[in-house]
């Protein structure tokens, strides 16, 4: 049985001060200089924005930065020396994250650890405690329930904050969450209250979408690789990859060697996406995914068929950022419901 404690607003402010004072990096939704809310490093409690605005990017960049060095090299007359990068990181706490974003981190854990344990990903994971905050939905593009999560989902979180009288209830989900509660026991109080979902201020949003049947979707996809639907739904898609950039669970990367002068350089890994033509183009010039319909199909297949076949769950947390970011109005919630309807029909 995991512990639930209470914490007042002042307690939370002191907790942030304790963490920052003790050398822990605190990451929370906060306002960027251009006025948008994003996950940022904060130094004070009052920098944290507790609103229904969706941070513009997911938490992904704190575990898989858009570009990160893997090692540097230096060549001498007879030798090459390799300078590794550190794989141990200082302590961090993510505070007040959206449940869909911490669920995204957990979804990528599976990929980063199944055959080879990615040292950089898990180095940052182990150094980080994820404290999410139960959510009241953002807007009509939220579809977490459709993909089997919910605005109070615990997936990926170490600790979940729920609204409570005069502050929050903090519910531990993992051992790491339990240790966090004990390490900061002075800031938390005892409670007999039960964690309750956020009153749905945006009734019908986020939580209002009916769950789809992931197994039926997977079965339908596996038999409809050549369906004419792919041609028609991807017509408006520009292949820009903004969807993948803001996605909490898209994790593909490219590895490049960047020389810096003649004798040294850095090998880096950079975000990449199946939505661009370059992703699959062969050295010969042939591209097995010749146009955008094939590329968009890949995005849907990976999230709802390929990843589920390997790891059992879908690679989408229903945050809706792809729909919000898309300059052409491609709408994953709409497309998933369409496929779910086709799948349900096929079962019948």
């Amino acid at each position: 049985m995991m512990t639930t404690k209470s914490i007042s607003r002042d307690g939370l402010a002191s907790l942030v001060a304790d963490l920052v004072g003790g050398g822990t990096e605190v990451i929370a939704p906060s306002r960027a200089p251009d006025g948008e809310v994003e996950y940022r490093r904060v130094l004070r409690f009052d920098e944290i924005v507790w609103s229904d605005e969706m941070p513009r990017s997911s938490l992904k960049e704190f575990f898989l930065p858009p570009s990160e060095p893997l090692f540097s090299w230096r060549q001498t007359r007879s030798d090459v020396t390799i300078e590794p990068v550190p794989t141990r990181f200082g302590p961090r706490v993510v505070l007040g994250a959206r449940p869909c974003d911490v669920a995204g981190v957990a979804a990528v854990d599976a990929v980063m650890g199944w055959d080879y344990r990615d040292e950089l990903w898990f180095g940052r994971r182990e150094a980080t405690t994820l404290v999410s905050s139960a959510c009241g939905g953002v807007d009509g593009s939220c579809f977490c329930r459709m993909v089997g999560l919910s605005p109070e989902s615990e997936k990926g979180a170490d600790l979940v904050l729920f609204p409570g009288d005069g502050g929050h209830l903090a519910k531990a989900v993992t051992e790491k969450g339990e240790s966090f509660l004990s390490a900061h026991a002075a800031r938390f109080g005892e409670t007999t209250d039960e964690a309750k979902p956020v009153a749905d201020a945006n009734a019908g949003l986020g939580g209002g979408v009916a769950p789809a049947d992931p197994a039926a979707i997977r079965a339908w996809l596996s038999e409809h690789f050549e369906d004419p639907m792919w041609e028609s739904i991807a017509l408006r898609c520009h292949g820009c990859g903004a969807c993948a950039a803001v996605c909490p669970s898209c994790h593909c990367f490219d590895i490049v060697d960047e020389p810096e002068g003649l004798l040294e350089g850095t090998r880096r890994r950079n975000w990449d996406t199946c939505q661009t033509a370059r992703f699959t183009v062969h050295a010969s010039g042939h591209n097995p995914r010749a146009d955008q319909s094939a590329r968009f199909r890949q995005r849907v297949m990976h999230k709802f068929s390929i990843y589920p076949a390997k790891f059992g769950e879908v690679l989408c947390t229903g945050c809706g950022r792809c729909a919000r970011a898309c300059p052409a109005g491609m709408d994953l919630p709409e497309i998933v419901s369409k496929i779910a309807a086709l799948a349900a029909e096929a079962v019948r």
Partner: protein
Amino acid sequence: MQELRDLASRLLGDGTVGVVVGYEEGPRGVRPAFVTDAADADRLVFDRRCVQNLAVYLSPRRGHLARLGKKAVVVKGCDARAVAGLLREKQIARQDVVVLGVRCGGVLRHESGNGEALTAQTVADRCSGCDCREPRLADHVVGDLPPSPPVSTRRADRMEEIERMSPQERWDRWQRELQRCVRCHACREVCPMCFCERCVADKTVPSWIESSPHGRGNLAWHLTRALHQAGRCCDCGECERACPANIPLGLLNRKLAQVVEERFGYRVTDDPAVPAPIGRYEPNDAQEFIL
């Protein structure tokens, strides 16, 4: 609007075109629509939320769209500058496309506007001082001529703010803006004038522009993108609207447009017969910058 729908229906019905590219209601406001059946033409809408520049779909790179046959495309007067650009640069031939011009009194900055009114605060930057409410490069023009859009000084103010900065401040400002870039290249993909078969940013042997989203790579990409748009950018603002990192790319484009106008007396036009400076040499061209 019915005029547009009837026209689209007729062009599809009599086989003049295989697809009409226009606007429809989507889950988050209006979005591009691809109507291939005359009976579906009633999906088409046009109002102040129709911010997207649909000329991008005329690019010969869009293979799956080309398979639908000859295209008709709905354009606002400003979007017609992109159609002219594609004609001028020989990407499409005039007979390959039916241009459906819509009279326009300005659009919002974002497509998801929930019916908000056009005001100096909500109007798209390019609409201020619009001189093309009546599309000129068009096979058909539909709709009534609305009044001029409200005038906003938003972009001019931002330009002025940057002009007033010292070189160091300006450098720091752009470093800060560009550091958010994750190199998704949405700015390129939504641009009707970015039609290269192979973008210089995608070349790897050698890698002219590092693909990493670090300071060096981002600066190289954004300088190259902006310079390649000099005298070509049709000012549709799609790059800035598409950017998931909210980088004010329109300011860079605008600055280049001003420089081109000052030096070459050229302003991007919807007349494809007027050559752009990039494709034209005059013996008296200013060239003191050539070493």
